[in-house]
């Protein structure tokens, strides 16, 4: 379980402190799939970083009783002069797991072949994405934090990611940030809408999407109209 109690986060800007998240209470249980919607800058990625522990909250507490992944984003934290294999080795070292079997998995999954021994700086963005995703699948977590994951990659690779995440890891908790309604609707069973630093929780996707569209300023007259547009 992950439990956030009265969590706030402030960032300093040129015009003073800006509250990005205020008084968030949230509990995530094992196996739950939480979809996150909100405008750009509404605090979605900030929440992901706080839950991952990469940044501390300004106020409030975060309890983690299950292992939580780093935020999976397709950009990845790679060093350009290191090879793909070096990067895998590094991750294995800091998470204290065996390199051999993990490397084999990355090799198979990423389809990078001989490029794994080339510096990451020479990779295309698609290749980087494949490497990043493959690496993040090498370590087992109870909860995965997924920030705009499906933005890149070709059809075939996306399908493999889907199988890896949503079929092989169907019992894991996930937090998924996405702007794609198909993706969220198909994969999540709870939905959070971010609005001005606070979150609203909804069970029903149509409801949350309708409100999300409102925040974007492109509201539909009613849900029927929205559903028709979503087809």
């Amino acid at each position: 379980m992950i439990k956030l109690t009265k969590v706030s986060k402030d960032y300093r800007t040129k015009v003073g402190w800006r509250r990005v998240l205020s008084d968030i209470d949230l509990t995530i249980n094992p196996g739950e799939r939480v979809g996150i919607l909100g405008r750009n800058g509404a605090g979605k990625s900030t929440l992901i970083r706080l839950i991952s522990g990469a940044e501390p909250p300004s106020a409030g507490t975060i309890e983690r009783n299950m292992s939580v992944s780093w935020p999976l984003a397709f950009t990845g934290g790679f060093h350009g002069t290191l090879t793909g294999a070096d990067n895998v080795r590094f991750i294995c070292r800091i998470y204290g797991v065996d390199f051999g079997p993990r490397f084999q998995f990355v090799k198979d999954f990423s389809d990078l072949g001989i490029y794994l021994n080339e510096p990451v700086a020479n990779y295309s963005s698609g290749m980087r994405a494949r490497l990043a995703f493959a690496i993040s699948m090498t370590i087992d977590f109870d909860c995965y934090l997924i920030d705009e994951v499906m933005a890149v990659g070709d059809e075939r690779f996306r399908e493999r990611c889907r199988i890896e995440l949503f079929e092989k890891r169907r019992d894991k908790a996930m937090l998924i940030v996405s702007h794609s309604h198909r993706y969220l609707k198909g994969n999540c069973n709870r939905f959070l809408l971010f609005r001005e630093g606070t979150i609203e929780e909804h069970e029903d996707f149509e409801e949350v999407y309708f409100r999300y569209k409102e925040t974007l300023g492109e509201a539909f007259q009613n849900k029927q109209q929205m559903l028709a547009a979503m087809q």
Partner: protein
Amino acid sequence: MIGALFLREMLTRYGRNNIGFLWLFLEPMMFTGVITAFWSATRTIHGSSIPIVAFALTGYSSLLMWRNMPGRCAGALKSNKTLLFHRQVTVLDVYFARILLEFMAASTSFVILGIIYTAMGWLEPPEDALQVVGGWMLLGWFGAGLALTVAGLSEKYEIVGKLWPPMSYLLMPLSGVAFIVDALPPKLREIALYLPMLNALEYLREGWFGSLMNAHYDLGYVATVNAVLTFAGLSLVRQTQLDTSDE
């Protein structure tokens, strides 16, 4: 953790092909070579009895230590920011890994060059090896404390990161790379000895060729400055850790 970061830094710094490691020695080697040649040529003018090679080697090696550590740490966060996504990697780990790498690099080049020069008959072994090691450690500690402080400050105020390189060039001639304190007029001596690295270097040099020189130093002063720098550096880094903000 630091071990993993250390290996990673080593690969990024020196690369996969082994020529990268060679630069570690070539650079100080060329420098000590130039100094030695220059001093040998002008020897008749100043007529000192100090062994030139030992003088140049100790001077430049110590410079490497206290100048490179802060230099390498000042921008370290920027290039390692994405690593902080991993919960177990902390800002302090990133700095420690770099400091450790610099310390190892400077020590390796110091020792290997010492051995090479001795084997070639240009250098007498140190008179008191333990004192040399002690002086070296003091320098390393100073470099580490300074590195943490400069790095912490440079995260807070961008200007510090920009000011450090010119600052270090300013300090370079004052830090004893090219002189021993005894050669200074007494007035200047007092002022120069406010520099902790000069004190540590004098101590180190006394260990190497003490019978040929008159060393001036205050170890208590060096230790105090080191401790203050370390403390200040650690607390600054701690602050950085608390507000690693959005890029």
